[in-house]
């Protein structure tokens, strides 16, 4: 695969006479790999460890609002004392209160349904783009990315104006005579689905497009030529060949949608339970940093662990395919 060849760094053979050229090449090769690892280490792993540490602490009326805090001046014994104060109480608390479990489940369900609809809507869009004349494709790509030019927050606010009972959508539907009472969409799950599908659609369309664009259309013709009607050809040829794009698109939508808090907060109203919103409330309303940290750690594990299994399975399948 291309990824593996890209990741292979030119390594200097230890037996070879060191020449300046190869040394330099080896060094730059390593450097290129060090940069993403350093990035992950500093901007992901270290913050995660800090969050994890806070999740093991207790709330305190202090600044920062938890204890223990590391105090390097207390020396090794002081540090050890701090370590002994750590406990998993916050995690136990999460399982105690059904609010958190419900919020997790509800988040996953809402994210899954939204991902499904994003796929349903994104696939025809990506397919149409991939089949469009090559001269039009850059323009279509631009149009998909165009919404990113305005603030995400403003775009979600705009949906309030569209979806509210006296909003644009209801006015239009009443004007055309399809309905005579305004539909209640705002502050329901439907509004959240609309918001998430709308906001994350580009993340679905782009990987799908790149997978479909690579596909040779003569494969579909060959399938039809061999007696396969168009719909069946879609499921037997187009769909399996688009699978990498489908997986990438679904992950790109599902993961951020699970932790989403702006959309449920603005469009979903007060009764919606999503873990991102719960996290926000714990952090900023309750100022309970340890519990919100525990919520964040569980959320991360929930998303990372299945993904790791999935990637392992895919790598295995790929190896067998070779």
């Amino acid at each position, binding site marked *: 695969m291309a990824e593996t060849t890209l990741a292979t760094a030119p390594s200097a053979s230890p037996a070879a006479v060191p020449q300046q050229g190869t040394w330099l090449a080896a060094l730059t090769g390593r450097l290129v790999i060090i940069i993403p690892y350093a990035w992950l280490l500093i901007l992901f792993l270290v913050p995660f460890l800090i969050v994890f540490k806070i999740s093991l602490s207790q709330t305190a009326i202090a600044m920062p609002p938890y204890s223990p805090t590391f105090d390097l001046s207390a020396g090794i014994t002081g540090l050890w004392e701090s370590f002994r104060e750590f406990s998993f109480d916050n995690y136990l608390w999460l399982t105690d209160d059904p609010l958190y479990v419900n919020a997790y489940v509800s988040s996953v369900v809402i994210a899954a349904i939204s991902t499904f609809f994003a796929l349903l809507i994104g696939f025809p869009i990506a397919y149409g783009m991939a089949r469009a004349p090559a001269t039009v494709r850059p323009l279509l790509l631009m149009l998909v990315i165009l919404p990113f030019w305005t603030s995400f927050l403003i775009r979600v606010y705009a949906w309030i104006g569209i979806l509210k009972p006296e909003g644009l959508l209801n006015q239009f539907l009443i004007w055309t005579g399809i309905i005579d009472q305004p539909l209640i969409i705002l502050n329901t799950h439907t509004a959240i689905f609309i918001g998430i599908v709308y906001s994350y659609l580009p993340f679905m369309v782009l990987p799908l497009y790149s997978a479909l664009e690579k596909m040779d259309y003569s494969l579909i*013709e*060959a399938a039809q030529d*061999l007696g396969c009607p168009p719909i069946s050809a879609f499921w037997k040829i187009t769909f399996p060949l688009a699978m990498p794009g489908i997986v990438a698109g679904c992950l790109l939508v599902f993961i951020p949608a699970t932790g989403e808090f702006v959309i449920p907060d603005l469009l979903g109203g007060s009764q919606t339970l999503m873990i991102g919103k719960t996290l926000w409330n714990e952090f900023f309303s309750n100022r309970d940093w340890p519990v919100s940290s525990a919520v964040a750690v569980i959320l991360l594990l929930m998303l990372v662990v299945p993904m790791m299994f999935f990637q392992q399975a895919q790598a295995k399948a790929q190896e067998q395919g070779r």
Partner: protein
Amino acid sequence: MKSLGSIRRSFSPWTDPAAKPYIVFENVTKKFGDFTAVNNLSLAIYEREFFALLGASGCGKSTLLRMLAGFDEPTSGRILLDGQDLRGIPPYRRPVNMMFQSYALFPHMSVEQNIAFGLKQEGMPKADIDKRVADMLKLVKLEQFAKRKPHQLSGGQRQRVALARSVAKRPKVLLLDEPLGALDKKLREETQFELMDLQQNLGLTFVVVTHDQEEAMTMADRIAILDKGQVMQVATPAEVYEAPVSRFVANFVGNVNMLEGTVAERSEKTATITGASGAQIRVENAGDATAGSTVAFAIRPEKIKVSSRKPDGAANVMEGEIYDLAYLGDMTVYHVRLVDGQVVKASALNSSRITEDPLSWNDKAWISFAPDAGVVLTR
């Protein structure tokens, strides 16, 4: 009876007025927007024929094949297969299969899955599919590659898989779009003969699209030469080569010398053509050229003899000098500049290792040819 070329053919249904053509194009026109790809074209192909559509890119040959496969519908006219009008029949219901130029092998399926694809669509029982796939793998000598994916095969192996997949369903007609285009020269030559054997053994009708005239000449029973969406000539390879009907065909197939002139004298069979410089050419097969008309005398390089002395008793002799020559091993090609300035190509087979009559650059030379060595073209 005198015959053109050296091959005596026993298979020639097109000469039999009672034979019914298998595939018929009837006044077929295909337009893409303003562009006319196929222009009021009519063509008849017979059962078990190896038929080649030959032409430069953009001549409409691929469009013809795609219309036969059902990927494009004619703008007007009809296409009949075994008496049945094909209009409106989708590709997946036509009894024809196509071998694609890009091979179009399904990348996510193994070789055997690729070959079995069409059979599964038919709903053939699994045991029969397995047997047919095994037969096909044997036919194209790929038994040990059954489990491989297309990207693990060489170009030649992929071509064989594509071929096996397209004949697995035993179609009435096999359409081949530039079947050998992606292969290197040596492999191409080998595969040409394999394709011919396959066609003979399976008794299928083959319609092959190619831009390579050598390929068409080698494999096909008959060739249709296309230009700008129209048929220029349909004939056996020997007829196309030895009796082209127009300047276009003569130029398109092989090397040719075109001696332009006007018909000075015309009797029942013979004619005399006066060239631009006044040189006279006596010809025997003047066709439909009338006295006074402007014609071209087309003669192949190998029909012209080059000698350093003026030959005795030849019907047509012209004087010139060696302008250029190329020694190709099996033959030598001479470019002779005639007195009137025209350069004529002549080739001589090097049948012995030592040439008795060596010619070199700027030597005085005479070219000579028989009255029936070329054809008179009015178009």
